[in-house]
């Protein structure tokens, strides 16, 4: 019997959907086993189609994106109500995603910047008709409703999604591994004493040696190994887009711990190398960090 499933998009770039359809012909292996009840990314479903379903009638609900609008919160709650197994699909859904970086500012500052002050704006006005209101800050979905499973990644690879879907269809577990991107990376590494960091476009990258050893900030050591080390394999440092392995509580704290151990620089030099630690260390999971939660409390208090 096919499983009833839904794929919902909250505020997101839809890259996770793209990664799913990138399965190409392998999609044909799983599609016959799925009874799709809601998937607006590919078929013209309406929210009411989802709302009409009986409670708990979906075997699996996939949620992509995070809650930037009140409408997103509503859709998330409906998905929770209808799904027996709810899956946080992609780093947006698991950790808040790139849009979580906006938690550095109040929503008013963010709206002013985007709609009134951005260089490309020619007709400055804040849209206020027929649009849902914004949420004050990004809260990771698992802090809003409970989830049975998370599949991190920005986006998760097609293989990750395939493995998760097959596990869900066959009732097998899909556990996140406690390995890192470094564990999957083929580059040769040495004892680290980093004296200087370079931007990715500076210098020539040796294709065989560890990027970190060469002074490029590669976050493979603090990032869960699920992607097959695809960025370092393509001569580009890992930006940490999959978030940390399950045993690490705070991605950026782990990165800071490691940088303290492998760098050979004065505190002043180190500070000047990382003027934007939030952007550098919490690319897709700032909203899930301790410091974002503290800063958010600070802001709502002084409002």
């Amino acid at each position: 019997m096919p499983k009833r499933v839904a794929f919902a998009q909250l505020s997101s770039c839809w890259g996770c959907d793209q990664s799913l359809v990138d399965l190409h012909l392998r999609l044909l292996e799983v599609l016959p086993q799925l009874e799709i009840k809601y998937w607006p990314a590919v078929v013209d479903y309406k929210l009411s189609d989802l709302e009409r379903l009986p409670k708990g009638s979906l075997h699996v609900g996939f949620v992509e994106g995070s809650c930037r609008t009140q409408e997103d919160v509503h859709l998330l709650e409906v998905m929770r109500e209808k799904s027996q197994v709810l899956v946080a699909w992609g780093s947006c859904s698991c950790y808040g995603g790139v849009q979580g970086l906006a938690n550095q500012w109040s929503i008013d500052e963010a709206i002013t910047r985007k709609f009134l002050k951005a260089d490309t704006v020619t007709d400055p006005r804040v849209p206020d008709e027929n649009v849902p209101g914004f949420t004050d800050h990004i809260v990771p979905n698992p802090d809003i409703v409970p989830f049975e499973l998370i599949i991190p990644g920005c986006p998760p690879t097609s293989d990750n999604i395939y493995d998760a879907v097959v596990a869900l269809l066959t009732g097998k577990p899909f556990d996140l591994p406690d390995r890192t991107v470094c564990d999957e990376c083929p580059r040769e590494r040495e004892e680290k004493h980093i004296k200087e960091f370079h931007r990715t476009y500076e210098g020539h990258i040796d294709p065989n040696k560890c990027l970190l050893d060469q002074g490029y900030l590669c976050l493979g050591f603090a990032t869960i190994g699920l992607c097959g080390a695809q960025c370092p394999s393509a001569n580009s440092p890992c930006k940490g887009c999959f978030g940390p392995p399950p045993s690490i509580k705070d991605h950026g704290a782990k990165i800071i711990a490691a940088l303290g151990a492998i760098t050979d620089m004065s505190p002043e030099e180190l500070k000047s190398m990382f003027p934007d630690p939030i952007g550098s260390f919490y690319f897709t999971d700032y909203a899930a960090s301790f410091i974002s939660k503290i800063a958010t409390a600070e802001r709502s208090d002084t409002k």
Partner: protein
Amino acid sequence: MKSSTKMKSTTKSKTSKEQFEPRILALCCNWCSYAGADLAGTSRLQMPPNVRIIRVNCTGRIDPTFILDALYQGADGVLISGCHPGDCHYTTGNLKMRARFALLQNLLEEAGVDPRRIHLQWASAAEGDVFADGIRGMVERIKKLGPSPMRRGGK
């Protein structure tokens, strides 16, 4: 016993800064600062009672997660006290802490959380007075900053 609980409930409603007694976590290394804290105690140096000390073997063992988690759980400030540079029992643990601390300061500052809520000091086993001064300074700083946002009910 009874009267003290009563006192608590009457002072609770007043929130002026004079009455704010900070809760500070101090992470001290076993070999220097914890011994220094001990010395401060046995020499009966006056120290404000706002600090809870946790002993670690070396400041190099302090995962930045401990510090951020403590602030998240409502500590008003976190003080880290270790051996002077060059004196680390494990050679360079304190230098690792110093580097981590520099990045943590950048992180707090960028996030909009006052970086003075965290502080790093050096105090050797013989410097009970330096340790006690450090604690007093920390308490004064945090009193000026006010309670942690996590305790102000602003969540």
